[in-house]
């Protein structure tokens, strides 16, 4: 058991492993598993949302529960995420980006719930790519809205120096806080990526480890341990029940992480365009 890698089922590979001990697996051509899953997610989003958008664009009210649900997602992003964070005037420009980020991350997260597939968002580089796109948009919008000079000036804090001690310390504090603000802009981008990747990775790794208990106690029972013989069925039953409940939590976390990513991107865009200082 020391040679079991708990990340093996959650990371990328070039085959879909169905049953390890029977040796059933598909080798995937050209692209790795996660790349195929991302293409699948993109295909699913296009197949679902282009007809919905066409119907809404024609002015018809959405009919049926499915179209209503899709439209609910889109209006949710527009009214709860984009409009409050970016402001009434500018939010329309960012809606395609926010919708794409939200839907793509959501579908990729949800692919991890299906058996034998995986969630590509567990790969740090994929979340990093999404965060890089968001990062570039945030700072480019800040520069466009405020000018380069004005945007860099928004990182400099304003310290009111009333008495002599503060007057002496103010330049030092200003420089330090300026550096901290620049650092925090970089750190926000990195944390955006790592939060998404770590949440998906940790969730599925915990599920894997809980199911691993069944194998461990099975091997121990096979090796002749009496306690393991007694405990096998309780442990197996409890493990499966807990894994099912945790999978429901995984569903919730998948939707929540997509929401948090989009919400933070919208908030940072709003802050970059209208610095509050």
């Amino acid at each position, binding site marked *: *058991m*020391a040679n079991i*890698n*708990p990340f093996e089922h959650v990371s990328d590979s070039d085959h879909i492993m169905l049953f390890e001990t029977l040796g059933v697996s598909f080798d995937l051509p050209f692209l790795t598993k996660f790349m195929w899953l991302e293409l699948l997610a993109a295909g699913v989003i296009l197949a679902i949302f282009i007809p919905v958008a066409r119907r809404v664009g024609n002015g018809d009210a959405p009919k049926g529960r499915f179209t209503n649900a899709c439209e609910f997602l889109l209006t949710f992003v527009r009214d*709860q995420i984009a409009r409050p964070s970016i402001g009434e005037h500018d939010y329309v420009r960012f809606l395609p980006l926010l919708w794409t980020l939200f839907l793509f991350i959501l579908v990729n997260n949800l692919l991890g719930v299906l058996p034998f597939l995986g969630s590509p968002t567990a790969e740090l580089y994929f979340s990093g790519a999404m965060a890089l796109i968001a990062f570039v948009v945030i700072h480019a919008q800040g520069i466009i809205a405020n000018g380069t000079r004005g945007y860099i000036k928004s990182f400099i804090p304003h310290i009111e120096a009333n008495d002599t001690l503060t007057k002496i310390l103010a330049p030092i504090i200003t420089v330090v806080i300026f550096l901290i603000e620049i650092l925090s802009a970089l750190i926000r981008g990195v*944390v955006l990526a*790592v*939060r998404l990747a*770590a*949440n998906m*990775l*940790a969730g599925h*790794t915990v599920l894997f480890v809980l199911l691993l208990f069944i194998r*461990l106690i099975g*091997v121990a029972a096979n*090796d002749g341990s009496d306690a393991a013989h007694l405990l096998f069925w309780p442990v197996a039953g409890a493990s499966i029940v807990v894994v099912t409940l945790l999978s429901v939590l995984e569903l919730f976390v998948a939707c*929540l*992480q997509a*929401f*948090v990513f989009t*919400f933070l991107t919208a908030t940072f865009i709003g802050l970059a365009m209208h610095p509050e200082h």
Partner: protein
Amino acid sequence: MKSLLRGLIVALVVLVGAGVSSAQPKAVEGGVGVAVTPEVTTFKPANFGPGVGMGLSIVGLGLGLGLVGFAALGGIARQPEQADTIRGLTILLAALVEGAAIISLVLCLVAGLLG
């Protein structure tokens, strides 16, 4: 004070027990050259650092989520008509706090596996 002492003694016993029980039986060379190595889980008692790190991050997470929940329940109790706004903000803040803790947990796990 007494319960603290008791807790420390229990922790010590658990650690020593983990160390003792992780002794791996050596490979027994049978007469025909058959090496029998039963697979035993090797918990290195030296994986102490990542374990402590994980425990501490869960302590921080518990405090953080507890505070968020406390404020949320207090707000809803005082103004039930704002319940929807408060609920949305609570979920968001809980996700942010939990994100930080999960980052720490995953990094501790990686440190434990690589170390």
